[in-house]
Each structure stands twice: as C-alpha cells, then as structure tokens.
C-alpha cells in the first residue's frame, strides 16, 4: 500500500494504531526515499516544538498574571461598584521582557518619538508602553480602566469622554494622575493605542460626570474635536460598547 504524507505525518504524531504503524514501518524498510521523508518530518516536529519550548519556561509577565487574578473585576455587572471600591493597584515594577532583542526596544523608542522616550525613561508605572510595531499601548491599570470603567468612575486612571471615530473605532480620553499623563486611547484589535498624550493638569478632588468635559485638558479636547464622529457616548452607550469589548 502506498504511504502518503498524511499517513507518514500521522505516524510521526503517534496517531496510528498498531496496524497502521506496522504498515508504515514495512513501507519505510522497503523504500529508502520514504525513510528520508519520515526522518524529515520527525526532525521538523522536534524543531517546531523546540522553537517554542523556552516560552513556557519564561516567567509570566506581571501584567498578564494580574489579568488572570483580577478576573472578578471583569464581570460587567460588578465593574462600576468594584472600580469604586477597589484600592489603586500597586505600581507594577518596571518590566523587562527577556526575550525581546535589545535593538527592538531601541527601534520602538525611536519610532514613537520623544514622548514615548520620556515615558519609558520614567517607567511611568506601566500605563503606556511601546509595542514592537511602534504603537504606544495602554498597559496595566490604564488598560483595565479603558476596558472596564465607565466614564467618571474613580480610580488611578480616570476616563472622561468616550466616542467613536469616523472609521468606527472607539476612543476614550484618559488621565492617569500618578503619572500626570492625559490623552486619547483608541481601541485597535485587542489593544488600546494612545493616539495623543499630553502632560495632565493637576488632579482635581471631585470628578463627576457633569464636569467631565471641563476637567479634561484643552489639548485633549481639541484632539477629540478632530477625531469624533457624532456625539460622545452617553452612559448607556458606554455600557453597550463595553459589553461588546469596545469593538463592533
């Protein structure tokens, strides 16, 4: 019987029963070319498995660990209450990805420019970090707030205005008081990408929905004006958008 690639690969993957294995072994014994092919596939399986083996041995980034442990906050019905009750999370330690080649972080820094360079140098308690494609991505407490909090809820990162852009993205204005950064982050795929950032005004003590707009930095408001399509989302609109994970 002819042994095709499908059967050869099933042999390598341990998917054949005793009869199938004997069949392959007999065919390989009779055909050296088939034997070479089998070895190639064996080697490939080992190579591919080996290429990623070290990932599972790396220590899990703190942010990911926090996401797994903070699950209760993701319950849509509990979010507002929990956000109000929650203590500000401890500032995450500056996190170095050991697998990232040194040049890539340098390149990313150059790409996102001076603002990002400043933020990185401050370690900014992990609210924004450049990704390998050069985008400035919301991290940690800011990412959680963008995902989970409705505007004007309290917390270390405060959201004031949520809106949609002409190309259908959800964007939100944010202010991280500890880092004195304000700006606009837009949902792109699974990430919140900072579209603009500016130094934040000093934190105000009270921050409720009615004063949300006036408490927002003028530079941020001006940028919103240039990006917004239609009206800002009201509370119901935010809840609906949040339920869809800020995607369409």
């Amino acid at each position, binding site marked *: 019987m002819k042994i095709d690639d499908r059967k050869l690969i099933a042999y390598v993957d341990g998917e054949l029963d005793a009869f199938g294995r004997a069949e392959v072994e007999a065919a390989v014994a009779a055909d050296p070319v088939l034997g070479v092919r089998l070895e190639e*596939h064996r080697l490939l399986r080992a190579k591919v498995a080996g290429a*990623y083996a070290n*990932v*599972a041995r790396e220590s*899990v980034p703190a942010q990911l*660990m926090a*996401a797994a442990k903070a699950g*209760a906050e993701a319950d849509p019905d509990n979010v507002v209450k929990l956000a109000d009750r929650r203590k500000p999370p401890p500032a995450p330690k500056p996190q170095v990805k050991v697998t990232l080649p040194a040049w890539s972080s340098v390149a990313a820094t150059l790409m996102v420019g001076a603002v990002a360079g400043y933020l990185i140098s401050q370690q900014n308690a992990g609210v924004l970090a450049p990704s*390998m494609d050069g985008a400035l991505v919301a991290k940690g407490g800011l990412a959680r707030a963008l995902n989970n909090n409705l505007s004007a809820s309290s917390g270390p990162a405060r959201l004031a205005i949520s809106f949609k852009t002409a190309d259908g993205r959800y964007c939100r204005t944010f202010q991280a008081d500890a880092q004195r950064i304000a700006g606009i982050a837009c949902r792109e795929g699974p990430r919140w990408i900072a579209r603009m950032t500016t130094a934040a005004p000093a934190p105000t003590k009270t921050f409720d929905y009615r004063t949300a707009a006036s408490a927002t930095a003028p530079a941020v408001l001006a940028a919103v004006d240039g990006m917004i399509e239609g009206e800002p989302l009201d509370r119901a609109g935010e809840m609906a958008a949040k339920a869809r*994970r800020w995607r369409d």
Partner: protein
Amino acid sequence: MDEIQREIVELLPRLRRLARAITRDVADADDLTQLTVERALLRAAQWTPGTRLDSWMYRIMKNAWIDEARARSRQARVFAPEEQGLNIGTDGAAAMEAHLQAASVEQAMARLPDDQRLAVALVLVEGLSYREAAAVLEVPEGTLTSRLVRGRNALLADLRGAA
C-alpha cells in the same frame, strides 16, 4: 481567587507559548494571551467543570486571533494599492532575499496561512491529539489533517530552501 482563576494562572505559560506560535511577534503574543484570559474570565460560567480548561481556552484564543486577523486584513486592504505599486519590480529581489536569510522556524511559521499555523501550533507545539486539536479549531479531523500536511510540507520546503 476562584478555582478557575488558579487553573488559568497555571495555564499561563502554555497559553503564552501557543500565542507566540500563532502570532508573529512577542508583544502581540502577550496581548493575545491577555485578551484570551479576559474573555475566559468573562465567560467562566460557560466552562463546564470537569472538561478540559486548556482546550476551552485554546478555542477562545483561536477565535480571538481570527477576529484580530480579520481586522488586520481589512486594514491591510486599505493600504494595498500603494504597497503593490511600490513592490513592482522588486519581487524577484525580495524572494531572493527571503531565501538567502537563514529562515528560522519562527520565520517559517510566520509565513504559513493562519489556518495551517494554528493546526501546526496545536499539534506540534502544544502536543494535542488530532481529535483535541480538531475540537479546538471546531473543524472535522479530516480538515485538521489536511492543514497539518499542507502546513508541514510548506515548512519543510521553506526551511530547506533557506539551508
């Protein structure tokens, strides 16, 4: 922490490994893992205790990645005309460059179509059986094995071409 959260924490190294195999870079891999964890926790009630949590989360990751890939291909189409224009006359040089580069396994994986890369990642990287991998991908076993055969032959050709 709930029981499910404890189990998810234990799964994180493997989830990251799968994410690294199916995305094309480190930052995307951790973002995809995080999205998977968030979605899993949001839908924790849908998981049946006693069934395999890893397979359930792999499926969530697969769906998250497909959503992401769709969004990216929409973006790519918007920019396609200009890029096509720029590439005229450079295809031959680019192809030669690709072969001259010592292609690592990761580079070869990155060049596979998504469906083949997912199949290869689940079986070769995560060590799932065909039945388990087919269930994660929500396809018949025959479809899974076709993707495995095509994907592996493409990897072999790619790695051999670079040697």
